[in-house]
């Protein structure tokens, strides 16, 4: 019968009155992208896959395997790799996981013939250059991380 784990005897104290301790917690998930898997697989092949509802004739930029209008199943459909900035911001702070990446630019991208938008990062532009309506093009990672960050946008090359 062991009494208690060794780990617990290494408690770090932050304060005595009141008593404050360091208390870490870690979880490792086995996370499935489930029905959205084709989208993430698509990114590794340089494809931006949205969802199309044949009944409502609506295309969703960010995939959803069911249509929120009619409730029917959607089909995968590639969306354009070029679009325009619907809105944007530059983040100078962020959640802890992203603090070391600041500043970064977030954009919601609109696509011709597509009802909804796509959230992504804009690379290759300075904050003061960004404009609503600006044309942007998708870029894909050659070393995929199987995250949505495998795609990002850059200003469309000037002709």
């Amino acid at each position, binding site marked *: 019968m062991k009494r208690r784990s060794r780990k617990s005897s290494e408690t770090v104290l932050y304060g005595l009155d009141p008593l404050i301790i360091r208390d870490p917690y870690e979880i490792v998930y086995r996370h499935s992208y489930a029905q959205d898997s084709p989208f993430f697989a698509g990114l590794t092949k340089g494809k931006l896959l949205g969802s199309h509802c044949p009944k409502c004739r609506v295309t969703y930029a960010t995939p959803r395997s069911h249509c929120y209008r009619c409730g029917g199943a959607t089909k995968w459909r590639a969306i354009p790799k070029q679009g325009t900035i619907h809105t944007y911001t530059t983040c100078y702070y962020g959640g802890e996981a*992203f603090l070391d990446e600041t500043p970064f630019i977030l954009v919601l991208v609109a696509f011709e013939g597509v009802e909804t938008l796509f959230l992504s990062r804009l690379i290759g532009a300075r904050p003061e250059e960004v404009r609503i309506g600006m044309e942007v093009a998708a870029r894909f990672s050659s070393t995929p991380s199987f995250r949505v960050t495998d795609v990002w946008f850059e200003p469309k090359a000037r002709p």
Partner: protein
Amino acid sequence: MPSIKTDPRVYMIAGGITPFKKRYDDKDFRLMVKEAYDMALAEVPRLTPDRIDGAVGSYFSDHFTRQLKAASMVQDYLGLCPKPSKRIEGGGATGGLCFQSAWEAVASGRMSVCVAFGFETMSRVNTWKGNEFIALASDTNFDFPVGGFYTGYYAMMVRRHMHEFGTTAEQMALVSVKNHANALYNPFAQKPRRLTVQEVRSSLMVADPLTMLDICTMSDGAAVCILADEKSAERFGRDPIAITGVGSGSDTMRMADRPHGKVPLLPHERAADYRHLKYPGVHSFRGGRMAAKLAYEMAGITRPLEELDFIELHDAYTSSEIQTYEDLGLCKYGEGGKFVEDGHPFLSNVDYGLKLANPGTLPVNPSGGLLACGHPVGATGLMQAVFAYWQLQGSIKKHMKKETLQVWNAKRGLIHSHAGTGTYITVTVMEKP
């Protein structure tokens, strides 16, 4: 939707709050709620514990609380076992949803007296980890990994609002000036402060155009409301306030998915007002409009600007206060910036160091709102109810020591609670009976 039914009426008969603070190291969430609860009970000395039928609790996340099923520890600590209980959650709107759940418990005839309690302890992690938790309440496949940060999301929303309607960052700053100044007279507020538009704009930029002073802070705190049916309100309440309208709404988790359609009109609006507006896009909160529409219908409100005496709304960002003026129909969509610029939501008797054309038309966030009171998520919506309760009782002076924030002759108020990018929103109307 059923035909509107306001009988049996539900009343708020007592309220209590802790001051909201950056950190309560010496009190855990149970004790914070207990203090708010004792404050509420002190208002209704005839209400003995055996007369309480049950409770509804609220807090936002297991992550902040470091404890799962934490609401049952509060139920326990308040001595409310073995009475009925449950926890309500809906992101930032958690407290407002909890209040409406207590209303449902009473209106359904299931309980005569129901306690609504809410709390959050956000100080057990650092601010940026806290921001990360909140961002985990956005889509963790599509939104969080991109740089999940709610201030960034709201910055994008208001950027589009500026584009559509010409709203300015200075108009947003006016909201900050107003709410921080109002809080100077509210001893429960976390961040009272006299500010200028210039100071708001020149404070640290967090996500363009939102600066540190456009954004509410994280807090520890608790709030409690006691609701009762008519008979119990008469029996136990000293100055009960009626809850005459409850409404709530929702929207897609991802901003990217917001549709473009027509504006759901309030009675005083016309389709022609919005002929060219694609709605809600990312610039407006469809859930807020839905919540207002339902609450106004139940309360019989057709001209909100004229028929309301004050509003406590969810100003997690200065921008969302402006957007919410429009959702609530205080002005037309697109006119929110001008609404604050003209002074309408300011208090007429507070000196903000500003020249305002029409101060005090309809005071919004006389308490100081989330911007200046703080935002311990599960408590926030209930705190608004407590402030509204005091306003309608005319007891601001009693509770705040000063009467500066008392809206004179307040007969009807509105409280509004809101979750990330408008995914859950509640609107509740309270009235002097």
